[in-house]
Structures are given as structure tokens and as C-alpha cells.
């Protein structure tokens, strides 16, 4: 982290993610996650110095600048409140802005939160306005991603079953996570492989759901961590990188911004061999094939080798590099919150607090988020002990 102060995650709260939370307003939804994070930290609103909130585009729910109306629900009156927006990666970059405020000793204790109430929105509409003179996107949501998956398969020679292995693994992991949206008890690998091919090579079962949900964390300094009721997760590195959505030479399969972002995080954390030194990964996998793609982009495998880790079971919950023990974005996707859920789940792992989906002995975990047509990347690496040096 850029500042002098160490940053600890002392509170984590999520809502039970579902397709539609018709029983609560947006304020009620974010409040639920925030209260759970405060309860986890055994703190009250008065202990919070600032609030940093994130969500995907305002067009999703059609509430312009929702942070204004959420100040009451989040106890932000009389305190600084910031809104972060970096498309699908926003949950991650929101947490990093909050962490930087603590690291730089601007604030001692910061509540950070991200949400999406997708049942009240239309993400496809919000992202594909009928702009005059422009050729309409011809393929729907998955059509944007599927050609990149095909490019990955061509480049690496990965067998076409890899995507289904990821989807099956993540959905089974989700069964161990009470907050996950999809709990598909009867799912089998055969069912995944027999599910309809929507945007060949992407099958229905290899796509993420649309969820209502919120996630919150309480971040604090060393002194705050000393008063925490439970062992905190410590931030050992955090970084963001951006690049244009489209440019000549863009590598959609392994974007440079993602590689650079990971390298920065590893440098901060003193990680030289991520495959050996990191015990669990929560990565942003909206379509199953992105697991092997990101394994390469994040340096866990050589180029062209990511799918082999997946195929060999390395990324299973009991493998030696579990990926998305929570069930991941494939099981839960309130878009604006999805990145923060990755960061929070990584923190749960190193706190030893992940319940049934705990990775045994996890001491270092990576949280990863990306968004906006592989335009924004944000990541953090958390550990069970304070950073040294």
C-alpha cells in the first residue's frame, strides 16, 4: 500500500444474495451488509470516520448518484462519503480507495461497501444505449465475451471441456457458502455439459447469474486492529490499472493492465512465486473460461498453461491453489458488489472465517476484480499477519 500505516480488515458483512430482494429498498439492502460488517467488528456507526461506496453505472437502477440518498442508511451524515465507479471492477477499487485512506492516515476507520440491485435494473439496456449512427452490438451480453474465449482456446489448445469443469466446481463450492445466490444441489458435470449453448463456445451453465446483493467491510489501522474482537486480515498489497476498452494491439485474452496490476501487488507483498506463495484466490470469473485465462494473466501459470491447472484439479477447493472457494461470480453476481465480494472472501479465508468453504491453512489470499470490457483491474493481497517492512 502506498502509505505508512498498515491496513486491517476487521469487519465483513454480506447479504444473502438472491435474484430479487423485493422486501427491501436499496437503502435497506446496503444497510443490512453494513450492519453485519459493524457487528463483525463489534463497532458502531460512531466508530466510523468515513464511508466509501461503489456500484456499477447509475443507469442500472436508474437512481442517479444513489450515494446521496444512502448517506442516512450508512451513518455518513457529518462524515466524508466517497463514491467510486470503475464498471465491474468497482467493488475492488472501492475497497482499495478505502484502504488507501487508512494507509495514508487520512482516516483511522473506514466503512466500505458496494451493492447492486439488479432485479430493479436492466444491465443490458444500461450498457447498450441505441446510439445514433453506430452499429448495434449484434450478440447480447455473452456475445461480447465468447469470441475472446474462442481466441483463448485457439491460442492454448485447451480442450473444450475446461469451461464446464470451472462451472461445476464453482457451483459446488457455492453449496458451502450460505451467502451465495445459486445453490444448485442437483447439478452434475453432465448437466453443465448438456446445458444450452448460448454463445458458442459459452454454455448457459457457464454464465453468471443476475443478483441483488451488497457487501461491506470495515478497514482500520494498526491501533484499531489491536482492539478487534477477531483476528483481522492484513492488506499486503493493492493496485489498480486501466487501459482502453479497444485499441490496436489490445490483448483481450491476457490484458496488459491485468498483468501489470498483479505484478504491482506481488511486488508490494514480496511475492515472487504466486503459485506457491498464495493459498487461495477469489478471481472475477463471469464466464467459466475466464478462470484459466486469469490464471495466466495473474501469473499463476505460464502462458498457455492455465487450463492445465483447472483440468488437473489444482483450483478445486481441496486442490493446492483453490480458486473461488466461495462459488465466485458464477454463483453470485450483483455486479457492483461482485468485486468487493472477491476482496472480502479473500479476507475471510486468511481470517480462517470462511466456514464450510474455508481453505485449510490459508495465510495469503488474492482478491481480483475486472470490468468495463477488460478496461479496469483492481486486486489486493491479504494475509493473516501484519505486513513487515
Amino acid at each position, binding site marked *: 500500500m502506498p502509505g505508512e500505516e498498515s491496513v486491517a480488515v476487521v469487519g465483513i458483512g454480506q447479504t444473502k444474495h438472491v435474484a430479487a*430482494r*423485493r*422486501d*427491501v*429498498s436499496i*437503502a*435497506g439492502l446496503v*444497510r443490512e451488509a453494513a450492519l453485519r460488517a459493524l457487528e463483525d467488528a463489534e463497532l458502531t*456507526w460512531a466508530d466510523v470516520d468515513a464511508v466509501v461506496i461503489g456500484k456499477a453505472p447509475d*443507469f442500472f*437502477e*436508474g*437512481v442517479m448518484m444513489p450515494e446521496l440518498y444512502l*448517506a*442516512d*442508511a*450508512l*451513518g455518513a*451524515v457529518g462524515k466524508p462519503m466517497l463514491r467510486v465507479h470503475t464498471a465491474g471492477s468497482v467493488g475492488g477499487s472501492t475497497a482499495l480507495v478505502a484502504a488507501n485512506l487508512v494507509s495514508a492516515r487520512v482516516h483511522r476507520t473506514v466503512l466500505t461497501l458496494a451493492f447492486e440491485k439488479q*432485479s*430493479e435494473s*436492466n444491465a*443490458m*439496456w444500461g450498457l447498450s*444505449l441505441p*446510439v*445514433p*449512427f*453506430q*452499429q*448495434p*452490438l*449484434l*450478440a*447480447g451480453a*455473452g*456475445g461480447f465475451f*465468447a*469470441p*475472446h*474465449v*474462442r*481466441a483463448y482456446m*485457439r*491460442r492454448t489448445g485447451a480442450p473444450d471441456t475446461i469451461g464446464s469443469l470451472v462451472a461445476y466446481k464453482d457451483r459446488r463450492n457455492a453449496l458451502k457458502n450460505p451467502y451465495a445466490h445459486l445453490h444448485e444441489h442437483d447439478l452434475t458435470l453432465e448437466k453443465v455439459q448438456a446445458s*444450452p*449453448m*448460448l*454463445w*458458442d*463456445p*459459452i454454455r448457459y451453465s457457464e454464465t453468471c447469474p443476475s443478483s441483488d446483493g451488497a457487501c461491506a467491510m470495515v478497514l482500520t489501522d494498526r491501533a484499531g486492529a489491536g482492539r478487534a474482537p477477531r483476528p483481522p486480515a492484513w492488506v499486503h498489497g493493492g493496485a489498480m490499472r486501466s487501459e*482502453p476498452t*479497444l*485499441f*490496436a*494491439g*489490445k490483448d*483481450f*485474452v491476457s490484458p496488459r493492465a491485468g498483468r501489470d496490476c498483479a505484478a504491482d501487488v506481488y511486488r508490494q507483498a514480496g511475492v515472487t512465486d504466486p503459485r506457491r506463495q498464495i493459498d487461495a484466490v477469489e478471481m472475477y470469473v463471469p464466464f467459466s473460461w475466464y478462470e484459466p485465462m486469469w490464471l495466466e494473466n495473474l501469473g499463476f501459470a505460464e502462458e498457455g498453461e492455465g487450463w492445465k491447472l483447472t483440468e488437473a484439479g489444482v483450483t478445486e477447493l481441496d486442490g493446492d491453489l483453490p480458486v473461488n472457494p466461495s462459488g465466485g461470480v458464477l454463483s453470485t453476481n450483483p455486479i457492483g458488489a461482485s468485486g468487493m465480494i472477491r476482496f472480502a472472501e479473500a479476507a475471510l479465508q486468511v481470517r480462517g472465517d470462511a466456514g464450510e468453504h474455508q481453505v485449510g491453512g490459508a495465510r495469503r489470499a488474492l482478491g481480483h476484480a475486472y470490468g468495463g470490457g477488460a478496461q479496469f483491474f483492481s486486486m489486493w493481497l491479504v494475509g493473516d499477519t501484519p505486513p513487515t517492512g
Partner: protein
Amino acid sequence: MPAAAPPPEALRAPLVVEFPFTRSLGPVQSAFLTGLRERTVLGVRTEAGGVLVPPVEYDPVTAAELRELVEVAPTGTVTTWAWNPEPRRGQPLETPFAWVLVRLDGADTALLHALDAPGPEAVRTGLRVRIRWAAERSGAITDIACFEPYEGDESTREREPAPHEGGFEEPVTGIVAPARLDYTYSPGRAQTRYLHGLAERRTVGERCPSCAKVYVPPRGACPTCGVATTDRVEVGPRGTVTTFCIVNIKAKNLDIEVPYVYAHIALDGAGLALHGRIAGIPYDEVRMGLRVEPVWSEDGRYPDHYRPTGETDADYDTYKELL
């Protein structure tokens, strides 16, 4: 190709963004809007004892959850106002009216609404007003048609608001909030030039003077080098399918029979791929490296689709940077 004639004037067109958003109300807004349907105005009591109308779910001062509802009067006092001489579409009244903040009797905060008055001289701060209810009410803020000046019973003025359970038969739990934004969109000079080229069925990109990549469509600047692209270069018409997917589900607003192939196509000479549909070949025979050319329809601004040229497939190494 050198830039010849002066650049054409940039195109402009209306862009209307319209969508009916839904809102789950939560317990407090649900009671408030259902109350309006029943001609009952509810507020909420704060921890400090004040009454907020419209009610909110969480205390603006203490952040405490607020659930103690009270009923306030349908009469109140204007606390400030502004005259609206030219009402717009979607506003509460079609004739000139005053926007008013009204503190209803029993409330400590004011509600924004419209006041039906003959002219600005008839409006003043301190004016006594009452609700004019809409004839048909559905559980929405528009159930209050507007406010109107009121002279009469003053006994409600200082009355304590009565506790209210907030329970109603068939409560309103969600509303639909239509949103509409009207823009005038201009694609800018670079795309205007591009569109003029397309009208002659020529695809003209622009080359970056720094990295020499040709952008199609051009954006007027190179996103990598950050410099203007002024050198116009005709590309295509033939190109190579660099990657693709087979679309098996019908997208909304698209009148294309599934399955069809949606492809990235690198036109010969272009520095990156553009997107298009492939036809004239069975969908399951499309492959990376397939050579294609555009097929124009009578009135289309863009090629309707691309079809195979019959050439030998391009070698992977020639397009692997253009996926």
C-alpha cells in the same frame, strides 16, 4: 489517401433514453405511498422526536432505523416557493404553477410539490394550503394531484400527529418509475467522415502518425499514443475472421434468425478488428481465418453482413494480433 475536401459538418441526431425502472419500497416508503392511496399522509418520528414527511427509513442524524409512523394533516404551510411559468412534459400541472415546499401540519420538514395558483402574486411564504387528491390513486406521489390555497379550519395547525400502525389492505410494495432522457448526439468529425465514406461503400480508417496503426472506425485520436489521427486510409473491402461466436439466443430488438455467427473481422489494412455478422455459409462452417467481404443492403448504413470470398484461409500468424 490525402484529406481532400474540407471535413463535412458533424452529424447530429436525437438520442432518447427511456426505461421503466422498478423500485422495491421497503417498509416505510410502502406505508407512505399506500397511505396516499387511502388519502392518509404518514410521517416518521426521529430519535429526537421530530416528524419527517416524506418519511425516511434511517435517522438523518443518528443513523438509527426509524419505524414509528405518525399521521399528519392534509393541510399545511408554504415554507418557500418558485413560480414555474412554462410547465414541461411530465410535470404535475399543465398550466403555470408554483413549486412549493409545504410543511404539513404535524410535520417538522417540508414536502416538495406543486401549488395550483392563478399567478405568482397569489403565492407567498406562509400561505395556508391543502392537498388536492387525485381522483384515481394507485399508491404514488402523484396521488397528491397538487396543493391548493386553503382558508378554513385552523385547528389542525398545532395538533400533535397521531400514531399510525402503517398497516393497510393490499399494500403497495413496489412502483414503476419511468425515466427518460433526451439528448442530441453528435458522433464527432472523425466518425462523420467515416460514415460519409460508408455511404459510398468505402471503409476509410485513420492512421496514427506515431504508431502507424490504422483505426477503423476512426475516433480522431489514437488511444495508445494520444495524438490526432489525420491521415485517412481506405481499408478492405476484404478481411479475415479473427474470432467469432455462434449466437443461439435471440437478442432483444434484433430481427436476425438464430443461429448466426457474430465475428471479429480484421479488414485488410486495418490495425484492429471490427464486428459483423457472417452469412452465406452454414454457421457451423465458419472458422478463424475465413476470408470474407461485405454485403450491403439497399438502405443500410453498415454492411448487412460479410460472406466468404472463396480465398484460402488466412494463416493464424497473419491475424493473431488482431483478435
